[in-house]
């Protein structure tokens, strides 16, 4: 069995997860502070990928990143880098598709944060960055962690947009999900089933790890 799809899927999910973790948090933090109208508009734009069919997202991505399209042709001519049909094309798809999950859950967590905690930190002379990383983030940890897990899991399972902009090239752009589809299409059900099991195991491990981490931390904060 060729393990490349596993490696590629994990690599794409990890990198896009990292990107989405930070961009999602900062978008959530700043959008929550905006005036109502602007907030409403930005909220729609940032959440749209969640409700759009992945194929529509793939279509948009090709329109931007394809070699004959603005961003893609610029990268090709300046850096000689192709943005589609490579292993990292999958990252673009995964980022766009999983971003709303991180953004929305983090925003929900930030909005339920008791602002007096930040105020009291300020009056005690704590710098705003300290308050953000040492108070706001830990207190909102549950929501942020949930968002990160959802985003990672979604990135791992991404198929539609990925298949459009990364395609299926064995040993190069193949991910678990595209491999399962390819194997099923070519009547290789046994192997397809093996990959399904691999996928199940990874997802279960991720969720289990998060649950354990979560439990250990919250126990200390709550009433005995």
């Amino acid at each position: 069995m060729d393990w490349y799809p596993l490696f590629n899927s994990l690599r794409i999910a990890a990198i896009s997860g990292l990107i989405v973790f930070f961009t999602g948090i900062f978008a959530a933090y700043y959008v929550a502070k905006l005036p109502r109208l602007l907030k409403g508009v930005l909220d729609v734009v940032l959440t749209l990928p969640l409700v759009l069919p992945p194929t529509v997202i793939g279509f948009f991505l090709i329109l931007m990143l394809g070699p004959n399209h603005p961003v893609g042709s610029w990268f090709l001519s300046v850096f000689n880098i192709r943005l589609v049909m490579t292993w990292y094309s999958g990252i673009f798809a995964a980022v766009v598709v999983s971003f709303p999950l991180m953004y929305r859950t983090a925003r929900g967590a930030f909005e339920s944060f008791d602002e007096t905690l930040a105020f009291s930190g300020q009056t005690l002379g704590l710098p705003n960055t300290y308050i953000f990383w040492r108070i706001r983030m830990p207190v909102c940890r549950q929501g942020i962690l949930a968002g990160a897990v959802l985003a990672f899991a979604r990135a791992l399972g991404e198929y539609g947009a990925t298949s459009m902009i990364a395609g299926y090239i064995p040993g190069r752009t193949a991910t678990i999900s595209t491999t399962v589809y390819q194997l099923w299409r070519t009547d290789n059900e046994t192997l397809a089933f093996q990959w399904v099991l691999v996928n199940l195991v990874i997802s279960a491990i991720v969720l289990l790890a998060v649950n354990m981490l979560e439990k250990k931390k919250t126990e200390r904060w709550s009433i005995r």
Partner: protein
Amino acid sequence: MSLSVNIRKTLGDFTLDIVFETKGGVLGFLGASGTGKSMTLRCIAGIETPDEGSIVLDGVTLFDSEKHINLPPQQRHVGYLFQNFALFPNMTVQQNILCGLYREKDKDKKKKDTEDIIRMLHLQGFENYYPAQLSGGQQQRAAVARILVNRPALLLLDEPFSALDSFLREQMQAQLVDILHSFDKDVILVTHSRDEAYQLCRNLALIDGGHILRMAGTKEIFSDPGSRQGAILTGCKNIVDAQKTGEFEVEVPAWGVRITTAQAVRDDLKAIGIRAHYFNPKALANHYPIFIVEEIEEPFAWVITFAYETQKKNSPPIWWRLPKDRKTEVLPKELGVAPQNILLLYE
């Protein structure tokens, strides 16, 4: 040590317009909720920004709209005790207190200050507890410790007892009196409780509708609140429209009686107030026939509502509160009230 505040801020149809200077000791802001007390504290602490005006603490300008000065809260050295104490839930008591020592770089001093304040506020043994594991009173002490260790130049207390139950509240009030005595800086206490105001504050500012109605010594305010709103805030139960009829006499049309006062009455008198416990069957002045409307039993007193025989039908009954040991089997048919106990209310 002095704080001088002169600020205005408009929020929708509410306008905050606060001007005052502290005279040392504990200053109480007494007012109903939504009248701008907390907003004023927030402006002083730098959490909210006034539209215009200035805030000067110990000669340092914290805010000045004309000079475009607006120090961030971190540079104001103003301690703020929030209603819910705002302890960081992810940190232990000790870590919370160390947040108050963030700027202190000397490790030994940090350690010593923490130990001292923990001892002073009786938090020994709770250093490694998280706020959720503490009782309300312990949480408050931890929050106070975190603020005091920060050595603020001014201490703001925002309804500090409202989150505590009544038994704990009295204990904590007593403790806070001690702490405030050892804290030699200005303190502003926001409250809607006249008991807290009376016990803890040397001076009081009565706040209503976004501005200060009156500011004076606490005892003075209670013995002469001066306005209808002031009488309500200091807990006066009987307030009624009145007109001046003589230098020491007013007429109360709704009660159908004339009342003699000890204080000279000004022409612009609007109403008088009589506290529920000032009625007395033995008082000779302002003695009129009454009939009893209702008797209500409280834990340590009786509240008797009554009306004068001459009282208009639509005028609400008058409150008389008397301690249990002074209540007689047969209630009196006439009641009086001493002239010095008549509150003259203007505006």
